[in-house]
């Protein structure tokens, strides 16, 4: 059995006087120990809400979470707040996108790291401080003794993200969820952080859920990739087949709209036409149909089911035939 099994996770946001909004719509995936699973998609596809739902961080009012999130045999969604607090930080770690807003600005880094150690591992402040120093050392922060006494604003962006990772790793969680951990960082710092995370997964056997919009990050890091669109997984495959032969028109479109560093000179980009605003609700068919170059009549009538096609899960009536060039040039 996998360490984390997410089945049919659905999050519906409801505001008074407004139509309910299905931010996450039946997402399922498994994570094994030592495995890295990627959730990719553009803004608004539900990837962050998925991570918040797994961690039980969504507000009780207004957000309805259904489905099951089985971690090590227990359904996290059924736990009480207190039981969940014991799990978070000790067994489940989370790294957020913006390190400055997820660290407390008026508390020194040291206290924020030792807080976790004291709460979950029952260490005394002094022991915790020594452990915190080791942690900062491990994530590559120079001069950790000094840094422990400093406040978040005294650290650079990359340092803050490292401190945040140190906090998430403090109790050696079995599962780490990283929500866009490098988006706010420069590329050279991003490379440092990604290689650090890779090392951690290899050395500690941590299971990692990587949430990102950057397909390049996914290509280098994730074993399995889930491509999300409009709250549903539209394609799920291992990274090699996914990038070599994207079958869903959305994945295909995304890959051909990214300028690649190793592209031949003069190569044209083929963007996906329109924007997420053109989506139709999944209940009426395929949400991507209005932007899809492969759309058929059936696409706006029948919701495509998640089907096992050629060793991958695909939600599409008319998948891309491998080897076809990107769709025709979209008039601007």
């Amino acid at each position, binding site marked *: 059995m996998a360490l984390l099994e997410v089945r049919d996770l659905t999050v519906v946001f409801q505001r008074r006087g407004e139509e309910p909004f299905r931010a996450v719509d039946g997402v399922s995936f498994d994570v094994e120990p030592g495995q890295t699973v990627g959730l990719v998609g553009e803004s608004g596809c539900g990837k962050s809400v998925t991570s918040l739902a797994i961690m039980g961080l969504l507000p009780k009012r207004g957000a309805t979470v259904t489905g099951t999130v089985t971690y090590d045999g227990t359904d996290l969604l059924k736990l009480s707040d207190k039981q969940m607090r014991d799990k978070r930080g000790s067994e489940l770690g989370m790294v957020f996108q913006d390190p400055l807003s997820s660290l407390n600005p008026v508390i020194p880094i040291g206290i924020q790291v030792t807080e976790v150690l004291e709460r979950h591992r029952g260490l005394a402040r002094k022991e915790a401080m020594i452990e915190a120093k080791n942690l900062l050392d491990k994530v590559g922060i120079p001069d950790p003794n000094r840094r422990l006494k400093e406040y978040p*604003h005294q650290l650079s962006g990359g340092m803050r993200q490292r401190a945040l990772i140190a906090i998430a790793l403090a109790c050696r969680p079995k599962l780490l969820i990283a929500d866009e951990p490098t988006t706010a960082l420069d590329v*050279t710092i991003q490379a440092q952080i*990604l290689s650090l995370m890779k090392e951690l997964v290899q050395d500690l056997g941590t299971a990692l859920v990587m949430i990102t919009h950057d397909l*390049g990050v996914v290509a*280098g890091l994730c074993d399995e990739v889930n491509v999300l669109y409009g709250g549903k997984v539209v394609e799920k495959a291992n990274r090699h087949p996914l990038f070599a032969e994207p079958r869903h028109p959305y994945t295909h479109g*995304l890959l051909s709209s990214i300028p690649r*560093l190793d592209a031949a000179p003069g190569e*044209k980009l083929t963007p996906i036409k329109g*924007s997420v605003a053109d989506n139709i609700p999944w209940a009426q068919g395929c949400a991507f149909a209005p932007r899809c170059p492969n759309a058929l009549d059936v696409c706006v009538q029948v919701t495509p089911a998640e089907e096992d096609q050629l060793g991958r899960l695909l939600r599409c009536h008319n998948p891309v035939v491998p080897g076809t060039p990107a769709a025709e040039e979209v008039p601007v």
Partner: protein
Amino acid sequence: MSETLVSVQDMKVHFPIKRGVFMDRTVGYVYAVDGVDLEIKRGETYGLVGESGCGKSTLGRAMLRLNEPTAGKMVFDGQDFSALKGEELRKMRRRIQMVFQDPLSSLDPRQSVESILIEGLRAHGLDKGKESTNKRLRELLTAVGLPTTALRKYPHEFSGGQRQRIGIARALALEPDLIVADEPVSALDVSVQAQVVNLMEQLQEQFGLTYLVIAHDLAVVKHISDRVGVMYLGGLVEEASSEDLYAEPLHPYTRALLSAIPVPDPVVEDRRERILLAGDLPSPANPPSGCRFHTRCPWRQETKCDTDRPVLRELKPGHKVACHWAEQIQSGEIKPHEVKPILVEEGDGLSPDVPLVGPASVTEALNP
């Protein structure tokens, strides 16, 4: 094509660090741009890349004189743009337009698209009667791929990509020669990014525009630019055609930068060798001596690197690099070694040679 449109000579922008309330004492400078020379030819796209804080945006703004440069000048189409004043400057500004990063905050939320576009036309006396202006506005919207019904709408009614199109239309309205685009696509989703990149390329062909594209994403810059300049801590470290820069990066920083960019292809990713830079960007208020990059450079040598600041020199035709040891690194004579990260002081980052005397705030002044 080969005629020089813009030439920047030894441009410097130093921002003073002020202390005190009663008397503004300058206690140091942030050396945002520190001696940059570059040339942009008519009809080409020049890409300026670098990480945050390297001074690329400041350089772009200083060229337009949105920030007054501390020293140096910019010659635009044979005229010294830095020496222009008053009415002459205002008239010249028509020919240099800018596209900003965040389309929502660079468009007035209370102005309709029509009014946004017409404002520039009026200011430069290009609004010659209702009919011709309306025709011009429709032309502009068609050029950037927006429906003509957009004229009556307001910025909040559009998506991110469409807003950026409005920003581009505003820049185009005055028929400029040069468009400076500061991070034109970094606020957009990938699928929309490609739409805007393609639009900019198409407009360049259509109107014979010259672009200066400032961005942190080297893949985007490589795609769109003919020539690329790489900046590090206020100075250009390498300049080459985009193909040469990718095929044969000469400066250690460019190498590290290129190796750090993820490529969406697992086969490439698994094979690639990463050059991981140690530590962070040093503070531009207190830049390292000699070569600015020597504190993080894996190829750093005992001599010259920490004492002499390398100048940009032409190693191959059209390929310039600012590194003392570029040839030796290229031939493999010098091998990379490990670098220990050096602590970077955040905060005010004052240079140590300026003593802090006198009150730093009102409270300090009142209760000495």
